């Protein structure tokens, strides 16, 4: 990002700049330290944990016994498989539907257009936790309760944020592309599939990453709609493990690190996509 307008706001005044810097460092410590401390505990044995200070580094920095135990006993493998199924199914459906809705809204004029846009916009103002009681009965009546389809179907609905971002991209694709394809006899579906979709690769990547992280991190949906132990996700596996072993901090910490690691890695490599998607999504809509 280029240096921006307000850039010199805070560095004109020297002493102010020093205070700001110290404060920033304090915030950085407050963010990094909790994570670091948990990593340290995760490499300690139970005896070591009880006898040494929380700030003391582990004796054996490569002691991965806790991780091994957690992977074998906590069923994280099952959780990972369920989470992966949820992500693959729901994110691909959601991207497909989001781009389809955006294609219709961006390329066609029809009578109910405003109404359609509004219909997708209004639910963002319905706080989703408050209607959970009723959603629960819908899931039950459709016989989806305690099946993986409950999660898939609840995650896959095309949300307005995605539609908005897709719409902006579609507006930037020249109409001439569509028209020349039309003259060559291509159907609308063909245009959507072979012209629009390929042009939206970066928007699709952004939305897919953000939704993947969202599904991976969600606790509420699996907790409420698929509580069966064979349907545990990564999130509910960790909370399940905590209710069995919550007091065993070396083991718990290993579980925490294992669960937190995947999105952290994704973030390190795909930071730009994530941040741009989140700003566009929240500010524009």
């Amino acid at each position, binding site marked *: 990002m280029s240096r921006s307008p307000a850039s010199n706001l805070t560095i004109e005044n020297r002493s102010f700049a020093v205070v700001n810097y110290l404060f920033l460092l304090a915030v950085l410590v407050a963010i990094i330290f909790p994570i670091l401390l948990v990593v340290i505990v995760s490499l300690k044995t139970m005896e070591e944990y009880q006898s040494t200070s929380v700030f003391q580094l582990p004796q054996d920095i490569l002691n991965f016994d806790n991780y091994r135990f957690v992977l074998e006993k906590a069923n994280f493998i099952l959780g990972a498989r369920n989470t992966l199924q949820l992500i693959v199914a729901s994110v691909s459906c959601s991207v497909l539907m989001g781009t389809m809705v955006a294609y219709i809204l961006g390329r066609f004029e029809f009578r109910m257009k405003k109404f359609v846009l509004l219909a997708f916009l209004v639910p963002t103002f319905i706080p989703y936790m*408050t209607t959970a*009681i009723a959603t629960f009965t819908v899931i039950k009546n459709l016989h989806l309760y305690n099946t993986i389809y409950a999660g898939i179907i609840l995650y896959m609905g*095309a949300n307005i944020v995605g539609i908005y971002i897709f719409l902006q991209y579609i507006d930037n694709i020249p109409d001439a592309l569509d028209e020349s394809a039309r003259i060559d006899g291509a159907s609308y579906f063909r245009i959507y599939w072979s012209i629009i979709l390929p042009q939206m690769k970066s928007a699709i990547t952004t939305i897919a990453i953000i939704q993947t992280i969202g599904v991976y991190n969600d606790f509420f949906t699996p907790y409420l709609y698929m509580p069966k132990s064979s349907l545990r996700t990564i999130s509910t596996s*960790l909370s399940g493990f905590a209710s069995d072993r919550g007091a065993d901090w070396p083991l718990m910490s290993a579980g925490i690190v294992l669960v937190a690691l995947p999105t952290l890695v994704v973030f390190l490599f795909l930071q730009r996509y994530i941040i741009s998607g989140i700003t566009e999504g929240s500010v524009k809509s």
Partner: protein
Amino acid sequence: MRSMSAGKRMDLEKNITIVSFLLVPFLLLLLFSYYPAVKLFQFSFAEWNGIDPQLKYVGFDNYAEVLSDPSMRQVAIHMIAYILMMLVQVALGLYLAIVLDGAIKGRKLFRAAIFMPYILNTVAVVYIFNYLYSYEHSPINALLNVIGLDSIRFINEGFSVNLYMALIGMWQYVGFNMVIFLAGLQSIPQEQYEAAKIDGANLYHKIRFITLPSIKRTISISLMLGINGALQAYVQALLITPGGGPNFATETFITKTLRVAQFYQKFGKASAMGVLMFLFIILIIVLQNRLLKERTD
């Protein structure tokens, strides 16, 4: 004639495309957004245990029960803790954005590190704090002891436990506020600051008269999302104190609603709570928009 029939065929294809592309997304929207909202409203006027096929309508009884329930007042007080923390979070996010918008050394690292908690698994974050909040082995207490202070009992029966719970949300989401404020700041034209500088404006003037008015919309969005999130906070309370904490000291609106539905099987009352929360959030958002608009005029 031929061109007309070709035109008709095109219209038909257009209509078929529109309908078929919108059909499934629309059905999902109806089924999982609108229908539950309507159902919630219906349930809120009935007595229902979640199993009976028949609803027994009781008028406004559920609402009366919720509003006269003394434990609801307790929950409302807890939510104040979350709102307070949310306000601190938005202010801190704005401050961090202003500072990190500047040519400060290492700003990329700071930005990335501060945003990072946002993408971490919430359950993992909550348990990280559960570790920090343990009594005997808490690293925070260890630090306090080093500088000669007493240990804090984080999970207590008082109001403060809710502040500690809300702090978890702040730790995780302050980077989100920072990032959207940064986007807002970057849309302010440089010339405005330069003109102000020529006029002899100091830092305070610049922030008060240029920065803040320019990003009013972003502030409003942050507050809106913040209120929404704060009032629907539940995961930290649910995971750290599954039973609601000592004397239900950590109960939030959502954990209470879930308890009423799951544990007491009172779906009607829980639905009334959902409707009330829904109306409350809408009311606050409308009021806030009104206020911000008035200030512009």
